[in-house]
C-alpha cells in the first residue's frame, strides 16, 4: 500500500499490517512525520517516543514475517494521556511536581495495550493531574483544538482528543473523572468512552479521585473504541475496585440494530441552558435513532442539579488525600534549602503544584477536616446514592439515556473567568461518574462555525455494548464521515 496511513481506522490499520499490505514500520514513520509537521502548532504531545515506537514496529514486522501472532492491535500506534504510568517514559500528569519522573513500571492499561500489539507513540498533554476542562491547566503547554486553533480541545484529556482528531495517532487512552474523556471528545469531534467504574484497571493511573477515575479510549470511529476497550478492559487483582466480570467482544455488538431500543431523554438536561446549535445537532441524533426504530422516552433524573456540588466535594476530597504523596521526598521535585521536614513538604508542594491543583487540595482538605466530614464528604456520597437511584429507576424503563455531552461547542482560550465557570463546562458529564455508569460521546454534526458537537449516551453498569451499538447508528447517520479538522491533508 502506498499513500498516507494516518487517517486509517484502528480496524483498518491492524488489518493491513496483519496481512502485510503495509508494514508497521511504515505506519509509525508516517505518524512520526505528521507529528513533526502538525504538532508544532497543536502541542498535543509532551513526549514522542520515536525510538521505542520504531523498535516496537520492527518487532511487529519481524513477528508477522515469521507468521507469529501480532495481537488484535498489532502495529497500531497509540498515544497515552500523561497521567498513565509508562516504564522508562517520562510521566508528568501535566504537573511540574513530576517533571523528570521516569516510572519504573507500566500501568495495567499500558501492559494490556502492549500485549495486544499496540505501539506507544508518546505521551499527550492534559490538565495538571487531570483537573480541568480545557487543558489550559497543563503546566507545560496549551494544546489547541485542531478544528479551530483559537479554541481549547477540552480537557482534561485534551492532548488525547486533539492527537486523535488531527491524525497524530490511530487512537488514544484518556482518563475520565468527571467528563475528561467525553468532553474533549465532543470538542474535537472524536468518539470517547468512559467505561463502568471498575471495568478497566486503575493500577498505574496517577490517582486523582479514586472513586470516580476510569481509563477509556478516544478514537475516530465507534468500532475503534470497541476494539481498544476490549483490549484494556477486564479484571485486575491489583485494583481493589476492579470488577471480576467477563469482557464481551464489543465489536460483535455493533449490529446496527436499534429497533425497539428505548432511549431515555431526561428533561433536566434539556431544560438547561444549551446553545441552539447543540440542541439542533442532538435533535438530529435523536431523529436518526427513531428513523432506525428506536423509541424515545421522556424521563426524569431529579437529582441532576446536585451533581455539580457533590462532584466538587467528592473529587477534591479524594484528590487532597491522593496528592499527599507528592512530598518532595520519594519522587518528583523537592524545594531547595528546606529548613526541616515540614518546610520541605510545604515548599515542594507550594512550588510544584499549579493554582487549580492547589485550589482543589484546599477545597478537599476543608471538606474532610475534623467536624466537617458529615456535612460535606458524607453528604456528597449520599447524594451520589440518590443520583444512582435516579438512574436505576430510569433504567427500568429505558436501555440508554441520551443527552448533549456539553452545553456549548469548544470555547476560546482564557474565556472562563472564574473556577466555577470552568466547572460548569462539565455539567452534563459529572452524573455518570458519580453513579459509576458507562458513558460515551459520539460526534453528531458541526456548528456553522465548523466546530464538532457530541451527543452523550449513558448506560446500565457493564452495558458498554449497548452504548457502542447505539453510538454506531448515530455515527453512521449524522457523524462527521470523512470531514477532518481545518481541511487538513
Amino acid at each position: 500500500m502506498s499513500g498516507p496511513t494516518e487517517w486509517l481506522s484502528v480496524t483498518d490499520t491492524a488489518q493491513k499490517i496483519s496481512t502485510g499490505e503495509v508494514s508497521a514500520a511504515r505506519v509509525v514513520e508516517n505518524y512520526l512525520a505528521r507529528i513533526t509537521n502538525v504538532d508544532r502548532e497543536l502541542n498535543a504531545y509532551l513526549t514522542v517516543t520515536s525510538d521505542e515506537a520504531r523498535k516496537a514496529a520492527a518487532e511487529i514486522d519481524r513477528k508477522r514475517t515469521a507468521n507469529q501472532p501480532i495481537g488484535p492491535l498489532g502495529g497500531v500506534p497509540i498515544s497515552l494521556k500523561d497521567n498513565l504510568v509508562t516504564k522508562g517514559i517520562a510521566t508528568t500528569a501535566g504537573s511540574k511536581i513530576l517533571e523528570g519522573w521516569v516510572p519504573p513500571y507500566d500501568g495495567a492499561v499500558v501492559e494490556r495495550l502492549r500485549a495486544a500489539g499496540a505501539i506507544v507513540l508518546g505521551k499527550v498533554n492534559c490538565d495538571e493531574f487531570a483537573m480541568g476542562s480545557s487543558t489550559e491547566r497543563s503546566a507545560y503547554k496549551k494544546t489547541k483544538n485542531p478544528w479551530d486553533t483559537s479554541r481549547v480541545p477540552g480537557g482534561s484529556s485534551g492532548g488525547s482528543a486533539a492527537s486523535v482528531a488531527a491524525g497524530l495517532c490511530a487512537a488514544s487512552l484518556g482518563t475520565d473523572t468527571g467528563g475528561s474523556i467525553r468532553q474533549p471528545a465532543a470538542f474535537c469531534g472524536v468518539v470517547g468512552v468512559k467505561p463502568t467504574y471498575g471495568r478497566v484497571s486503575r493500577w498505574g493511573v496517577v490517582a486523582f479521585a479514586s472513586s470516580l477515575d476510569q481509563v477509556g479510549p478516544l478514537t475516530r470511529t465507534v468500532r475503534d473504541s470497541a476494539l481498544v476497550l476490549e483490549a484494556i478492559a477486564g479484571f485486575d487483582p491489583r485494583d481493589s475496585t476492579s470488577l471480576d466480570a467477563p469482557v464481551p467482544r464489543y465489536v460483535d455488538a455493533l449490529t446496527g440494530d436499534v429497533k425497539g431500543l428505548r432511549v431515555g431523554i431526561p428533561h433536566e438536561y434539556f431544560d438547561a441552558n444549551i446553545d441552539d446549535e447543540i440542541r439542533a445537532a442532538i435533535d438530529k441524533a435523536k431523529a436518526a435513532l427513531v428513523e432506525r426504530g428506536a423509541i424515545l422516552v421522556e424521563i426524569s433524573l431529579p437529582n441532576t442539579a446536585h451533581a455539580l456540588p457533590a462532584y466538587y466535594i467528592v473529587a477534591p476530597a479524594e484528590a487532597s488525600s491522593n496528592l499527599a504523596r507528592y512530598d518532595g521526598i520519594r519522587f518528583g521535585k523537592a524545594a531547595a534549602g528546606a529548613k526541616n521536614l515540614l518546610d520541605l513538604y510545604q515548599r515542594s508542594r507550594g512550588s510544584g503544584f499549579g493554582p487549580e491543583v492547589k485550589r482543589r487540595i484546599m477545597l478537599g482538605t476543608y471538606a474532610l477536616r475534623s467536624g466537617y466530614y458529615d456535612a460535606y464528604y458524607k453528604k456528597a456520597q449520599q447524594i451520589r446514592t440518590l443520583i444512582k437511584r435516579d438512574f436505576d429507576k430510569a433504567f427500568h424503563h429505558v436501555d440508554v439515556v441520551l443527552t448533549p455531552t456539553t452545553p456549548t461547542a469548544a470555547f476560546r482560550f482564557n474565556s472562563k473567568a472564574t473556577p466555577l465557570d470552568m466547572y460548569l463546562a462539565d455539567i452534563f458529564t459529572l452524573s455518570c461518574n458519580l453513579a459509576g455508569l458507562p458513558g460515551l460521546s459520539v460526534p453528531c454534526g458541526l456548528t456553522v462555525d465548523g466546530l464538532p458537537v457530541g451527543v452523550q449516551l449513558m448506560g446500565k453498569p457493564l452495558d458498554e455494548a449497548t452504548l457502542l451499538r447505539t453510538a454506531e447508528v448515530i455515527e453512521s447517520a449524522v457523524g462527521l464521515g470523512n470531514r477532518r479538522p481545518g481541511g487538513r491533508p
Partner: protein
Amino acid sequence: MPQLTRKEVDEIAMLARLHLEPDEAIRMQDELGKILDHFLALATVETDGVPAMTHAVPMDLRLRKDEPASSLPASEAVRAAPAREGDLFVVPAIIGGGDK
C-alpha cells in the same frame, strides 16, 4: 454564608502542607468562599437514612491470599528520589532544622 476567614485559609493550607504566598492566600480566600457558597444548596437535600455510595456495582472488598509475591526492588523504588543514599531516602531534620 461559609465565607472563609484568612485564619481558616492558613489553617487549611497548614493541614494540606501547602506553602501559599500572601497574594495566593488572599485569592484562595475569595475563590474558595465563592465555591463553598455554591455548595450551600446541598444542605437542603434530604439524605436521612440514605447510604453513602461506594461502587456502581455492589461488590465486597476482596482480600488477596496472604502469600509472598515479588515487588519492585528497593533500588528501583528509590531511583526517582530527589535525595538518596544507597537504597534510602534522605530527608531534612524532622525536629529542629539544618541537619539531615
